[in-house]
């Protein structure tokens, strides 16, 4: 992919470098000279963009993502976990946002006062049965890519999600976020990795939902659960429930 930008850039630069002097000195046409200069400018931009492509190929990234997902899915299936994951902000963990999957589904979680330890199997509530496994999701990793931590407004969550999904990962075209009292509605258009009815997604949500949930949780500084996820007419709709 990087080569196509480089080839385009070199082609435009070469064409512009030849065309601009010919237009100016031989044809004596200023507009055609300007076209040549514009071609050089766009050519240099293409070359610059070609150099900013990731070092790892998309196929290698997909392989790594799939390996991680299949390992987590195997763990979830083996333990028979069906409850929806709760995305925790970094302040509730040891500096790293992660997803918590309760062993027993509980609608009204009574959280422990201290930080949840950085282990795989943890106790998260005041009741003895409140045990869960904590896993790292694509959303957990992406928080580190944000230059500044988003604030608790829909605009800031939308900007952070757009930056990650559109600018950094390029897996969506646009993101719209609306924030109600205990609910965050997210609409993602042109999503490349949309929801599938598999065990991993039922539990942790699709990678896009996971990223949006992790960003929302970090922005609101509250645990967040993916309540609903649907895909229709090229748009993914994600409903997040903000837990107290």
């Amino acid at each position, binding site marked *: *992919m990087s080569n196509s*930008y480089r080839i*385009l850039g070199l082609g435009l630069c070469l064409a512009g470098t030849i065309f601009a002097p010919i237009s*100016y000195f031989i044809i004596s046409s*200023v*507009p055609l*000279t*300007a*076209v040549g*200069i*514009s071609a050089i*400018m*766009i050519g*240099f*931009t*293409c070359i*610059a*963009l070609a*150099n*900013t*492509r990731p070092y790892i190929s998309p196929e290698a990234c997909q392989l790594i993502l799939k390996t991680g997902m299949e390992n987590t899915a195997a763990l979830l299936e083996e333990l028979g976990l069906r409850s929806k994951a709760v995305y925790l902000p970094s302040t509730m963990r040891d500096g790293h946002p992660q997803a918590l999957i309760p062993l027993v589904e509980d609608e009204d979680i009574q959280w422990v006062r201290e930080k949840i330890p950085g282990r795989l199997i943890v106790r998260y509530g005041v009741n003895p049965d409140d045990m869960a496994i904590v896993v790292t999701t694509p959303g957990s990793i992406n928080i580190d890519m944000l*230059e500044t931590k988003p604030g608790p407004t829909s605009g800031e969550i939308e900007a952070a999600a*757009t*930056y990650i999904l*559109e*600018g*950094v990962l*390029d897996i969506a*075209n646009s993101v719209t976020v609306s924030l109600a009292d205990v609910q965050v509605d997210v609409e993602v258009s*042109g999503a490349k990795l949309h929801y599938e009815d598999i065990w991993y997604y039922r539990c942790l949500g699709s990678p896009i939902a996971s990223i949006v949930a992790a960003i929302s949780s970090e922005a609101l500084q509250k645990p967040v659960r993916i309540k609903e996820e649907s895909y229709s007419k090229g748009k993914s709709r994600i409903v997040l429930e903000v837990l107290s």
Partner: protein
Amino acid sequence: MRIYNKYIVSLALASSLINILLAFFGQNDLEIYFIINILTYLIITLLYIYFNPRARRALNTIGVVLFAGFMVIIAFEVMEILSGI
């Protein structure tokens, strides 16, 4: 890389439109074409704030070079005006 494609297409469309419009209105000063093309480039680049940090750094470098060219042209124009006085 859809965002890169969108950016390149918008740059190409904007510069084509500007060159056509200026030619249509009979503009024959190369400096005017250059300045307006640079301004368009800077504005469009500024609108794509969601680029990844590496892309933004690379585009900022090009932007600085173009802005320097823009300033040189402005400086020459100012000197020309002042020497005329």
